[in-house]
């Protein structure tokens, strides 16, 4: 047998740090391990005993890219535990700021971090040298998202205006309406980028994924809906733990999400898109068709296109919400300490982010469970790598390494969220 050893000491263009080990014995892929060895950060443990109102601000610190996902899942879960119902105006404002997070997170990944893989370039700096207009457009588009977050949340990273029950202060209508022209530009820019990137040479790969996302009868889901899948799953968020489990494996400090039967599943843009294509706007559906995409995309490398379609959607939706904006009055619903339990699930850019809290009569956290999207995607990332490596044995070690990294970046993994470094080792025995 021929032994091949390929090693990448630090995977670039992902959030956080981890390692990948692939062992090949001739044509056999003997082992694939997506290794995360960042020490766990124990957020769930140190939430215990804290005032439940602190939960959104504490959990937002799990991630500097998608803090809104943590804030919103935490808020909704605590509000359910305390039997609080928020107003439609607060709900719309939450959806608006969440659109901002999708725009900035997806644009950063698709245009600056993932696109170099398809262009044969090392990084966004080289794109800037060869195609400066593309990078300028991406930077402006990302700024559109940051502007939404600043306007609603007070700042673009770790917003300070969000709270359990709503917002500390309702944003000024003039400031919200002022976002509309750039959001309109952003929708068109995202569409142009999607069509431009549709010309990339995508690896020929298809897989019959179990797509899991929120589903909603009327809206492309962001902060609302039941948990559903393309294989008939349709459950209330409260039933998450009855259908999903978290496994500890020796090679990862992040728990790995699986279905209760042990099978892997996929969360994120491909899943949202497949489960909710009909709820995209006609313009977004038109972009998908022009980009050559059907209502279900099973080639994981084309996730870059779906991300950009979701950016277009988020811009259109944010513009709609901004036009209709009515300042919530009051800006938040007061809460009283009350024993209870809450569950919430919202769509972080990388997929569903589930939170569950139990609160005591004094309003203190007794139990916390946070299931981020990258944790859930780990087993599917390993399955994708095994499949892609098996299909790519004729590649040189250098090219195989590149393909492995590209495969991982299909997921825009946020290792910091799942807990934080990526080294890649491929042994060919």
């Amino acid at each position, binding site marked *: 047998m021929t032994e091949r050893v390929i090693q990448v000491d630090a995977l670039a263009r992902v959030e956080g740090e981890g390692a990948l080990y692939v062992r090949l014995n001739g044509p056999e892929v003997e082992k694939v391990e997506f290794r995360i060895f960042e020490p766990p950060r124990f957020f769930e443990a140190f939430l215990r005993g804290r005032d439940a109102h602190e939960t959104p601000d504490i959990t937002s610190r799990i991630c500097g890219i998608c803090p809104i996902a943590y804030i919103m899942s935490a808020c909704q879960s605590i509000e359910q535990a305390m039997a609080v119902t928020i107003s439609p105006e607060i709900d719309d404002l939450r959806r608006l700021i969440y659109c901002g997070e999708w725009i900035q997170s997806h644009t950063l990944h698709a245009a600056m971090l993932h696109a170099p893989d398809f262009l044969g370039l090392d990084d*966004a*700096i080289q794109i800037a040298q060869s195609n*400066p207009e593309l990078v300028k457009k991406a930077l402006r588009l990302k700024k559109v998202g*940051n502007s939404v977050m600043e306007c609603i949340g007070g700042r*673009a990273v770790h917003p300070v205006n969000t709270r359990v029950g709503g917002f500390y202060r309702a944003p000024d209508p003039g400031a919200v309406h002022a976002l509309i022209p750039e959001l309109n530009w952003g929708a068109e820019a995202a569409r142009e980028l999607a069509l431009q990137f549709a010309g990339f040479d995508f690896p020929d790969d298809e897989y019959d994924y179990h797509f899991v996302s929120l589903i909603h009868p009327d809206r492309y889901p962001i902060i609302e809906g039941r948990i559903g899948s393309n294989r008939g799953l349709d459950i209330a968020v409260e039933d998450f733990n009855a259908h999903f489990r978290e496994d500890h494996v020796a090679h990862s400090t992040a728990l790995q999400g699986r279905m209760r039967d042990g099978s892997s599943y996929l969360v994120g843009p491909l899943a949202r898109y497949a489960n909710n294509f009909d709820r995209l706007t006609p313009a977004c559906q038109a972009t998908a068709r022009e980009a050559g995409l059907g209502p279900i995309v099973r080639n994981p490398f084309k996730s870059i296109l779906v991300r950009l379609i979701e950016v277009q959607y988020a811009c259109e939706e944010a513009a709609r919400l901004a036009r209709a904006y009515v300042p919530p009055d009051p800006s938040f619903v007061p809460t009283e300490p009350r024993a209870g339990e809450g569950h919430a699930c919202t769509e972080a850019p990388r997929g569903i982010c589930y939170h569950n809290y139990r609160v005591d009569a004094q309003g203190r956290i007794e139990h916390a469970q946070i299931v981020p999207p990258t944790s859930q995607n780990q087993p599917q990332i390993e399955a994708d790598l095994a499949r892609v490596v098996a299909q790519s044995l004729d590649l040189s070690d250098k090219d195989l390494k590149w393909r492995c990294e590209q495969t991982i970046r299909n997921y825009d993994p946020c290792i910091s969220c799942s807990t934080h470094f990526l080294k890649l080792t491929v042994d060919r025995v």
Partner: protein
Amino acid sequence: MSDGAGSLPLIIGIGNRFRRDDGVGPWVAETLQNAGRQVHIHAGDGTALLDLFAVHGDIILIDATKSGAAPGDLVSIDARSAPLHADMFHYSTHRFGLAEAVETARALDLLPARLWVYGIEGQDFGAGIGLSERVERTARELVSTLAADPADDA
């Protein structure tokens, strides 16, 4: 190195104050802010730095380094005349940090007219607040230098 009569460079402190010495940039910036200087604390990915480059012609960036130098060692770089190496700096979100932002801006011809980068070698990047002794000593010296006459050092 002021931008013109009466104007001083914008001080940008980069890093995470909850990761010990990674917070040295924000520590310096906040200390200078208390002395009346215009500062910005930067968190998140590096692309937002390019937005600041677009509106400020004179900028000083302060970040923690992890280059293998002795803890507390200070390096100053005229970023307009020398490229930044990504391996030098500790801060990075999605591997798009200070060096990537500056080099992308260079490629796009978006660098401010004056851009100086100060790096202070960190010792402890673990979870927690507060700077290690040698890093704080250098940070205090840099504050004194920049507060006294920002034009001299850069």
